[in-house]
């Protein structure tokens, strides 16, 4: 991704972008309680991972933060305002899962990015010069400007993802929600997305990423919220993303390997535990803390 492009104006972003999820309970019409007593707080300048097994309420939580679902009890506030008010101010940008998009839809890359600007346009949604400029700048920032006239179905998985990232950038959302951003993208795009998220974090955005890629989490997320219908653990990655918490959240759904090197020459306990979801393994030391995360490429080179 290009680095020379215009940074978001810091004055746009007030210091009060905090997300308060306060004792939220969400029950569906059929009586199923998808989330209960869910509480956590996040502030600006954060990349937070939201992890949990399928059916743990991740997407319910996303929909609640976006105001599509109304909590049965509790509340969600963004910068002290109710979600609906924050939305009218374009504060929350959303990047959908690839499976949720109809790629045959007859819209161009530029059309999609301009959809991020609708909240700023008049009721006829005719883009002003500023809207076009911002859309082009956003496309340049994700390295997709050359593709702006393409129909969205004609792009690769990574390119598609970047178009929707550009839409979120164009929307100038202070809070960015990403639903499974790494599913179906190549390693290069994965790195590019992470790089861009880091830039947004430096620009004081709050980024919430729902992901299955546990191995990637420590490499770019500074906060983690682990849920299973309620918050099991929330806090800085180093303290929260522990073997114990993950074992509680994922139970038997992860591969669990123990590697014991106690006969190491220096005599120290050297037991490792590897948790893997078949993507990238998590390696824990004997204290249950992360030893290091997988560096794709590096380890493969070393093993040669």
């Amino acid at each position, binding site marked *: 991704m290009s680095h020379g492009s215009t940074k978001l104006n810091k004055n746009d972003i007030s210091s009060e972008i905090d997300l308060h999820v306060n004792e939220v309970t969400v029950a569906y*019409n*059929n009586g199923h309680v998808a989330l209960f007593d869910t509480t956590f707080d996040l502030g600006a300048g954060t990349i937070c991972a939201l992890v949990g097994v399928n059916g743990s309420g991740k997407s319910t939580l996303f929909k609640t933060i*976006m*105001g*599509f679902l109304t909590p049965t009890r509790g509340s969600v506030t963004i910068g002290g305002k109710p979600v609906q008010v924050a*939305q*009218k101010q*374009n504060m*929350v*940008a*959303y990047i*959908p899962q690839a499976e*949720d*998009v*109809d790629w045959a*839809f*007859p*819209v*161009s890359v530029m*059309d999609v990015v301009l*959809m*991020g600007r*609708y*909240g700023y346009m008049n*009721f*006829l*949604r005719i883009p002003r010069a500023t809207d076009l400029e911002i859309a082009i700048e956003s496309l340049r920032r994700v390295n997709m400007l050359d593709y702006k006239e393409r*129909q969205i*179905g004609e792009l690769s998985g990574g390119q598609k993802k970047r178009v929707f990232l550009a*839409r979120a950038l164009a*929307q100038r*959302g202070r809070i960015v929600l990403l639903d499974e951003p790494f599913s179906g993208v190549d390693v290069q795009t994965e790195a590019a997305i992470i790089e861009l998220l880091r830039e947004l974090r430096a620009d004081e955005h709050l980024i919430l990423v729902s992901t299955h890629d546990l191995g990637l989490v420590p490499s770019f997320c500074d906060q983690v919220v682990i849920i299973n219908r309620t918050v099991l653990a929330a806090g800085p990655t180093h303290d929260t993303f522990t073997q114990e918490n993950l074992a509680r959240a994922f139970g038997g759904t992860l591969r669990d390997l123990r590697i014991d090197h106690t006969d190491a020459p220096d005599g120290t306990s050297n037991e490792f535990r590897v948790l893997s979801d078949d993507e990238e393994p998590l390696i824990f030391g004997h204290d249950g803390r992360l030893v290091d995360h997988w560096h794709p490429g590096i380890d493969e080179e070393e093993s040669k």
Partner: protein
Amino acid sequence: MNLSYLIEPFQYRFMVEAMLMAALVGGTCAVLSCYLVLKGWSLMGDAVSHAVLPGIVLAYIVGAPLAVGAFLAGLLCASGTGWITNHSRLKGDAVMGVVFTGLFALGLVMFTKVTTDVHLNHILFGSLLGIERSDMLQAVIAATLTLVILAVVRKDILLYLFDANQARAVGLNTTFLHYLFLALLSLTIVAALQAVGIILTVAMLIVPGCIGLLLSDRFGRMTAIASGAAIFSAIAGTYLSYFLNGETGACIVLTQAIILTLAALFGPKYGILFRARAARRAAAGREQ
């Protein structure tokens, strides 16, 4: 056969009026059909067009304009289907099937109980050539209203259909858009009923959008192609019906179907023959 024989249909006022009516109604349906086809709601048009029957009969009984009754019944079907789906364990297609056939059956029963001067055949198959002034006026109002409202909200509705979550995220009222769209659909169907009747309205609400989608990958162009094809079919179909002495509505829909078939076969990018040729070339390229 000389030239004057070919231009004969244009010498009759009722023929020219029928062509203009069909073009207006067909064009309006075509614009709507683009949204329906993209959303996968083609059968919503089918459902609403059948469900208007009891509304028409009721309007007749109370002496209201038939279009008003039809509009309300259509809206009731479209929104009722959504509501029942959200509040029961039945899936949407089943609910829709039950609601619209139920309303249609109710309409048929009511129709046979009430003595009217309206022929059931005209409601089922339209009566383009014998259309009355008042009906024509109602259709023109309904079609114009639909087109004007759509011109204002087309981008919002398109975003809602493409990505409802994003629509909400930029502050659009998606519930309002949803019901507005269903209201526009009912309004269009009211206009279309006068021309081609209940049975064939559904074709006018699906086929042009499909033609547009096969020949274009931009929404604006898709709409233009769909409307163009529908207006051409309206005029050509009415014209042909004069010589074939056939049902006008059927001739219009048949023309649309022929264009769709040609587009599906010979479309420059998504046509079956183009794709087959591209696949052959790719295979030949690999062998070399």
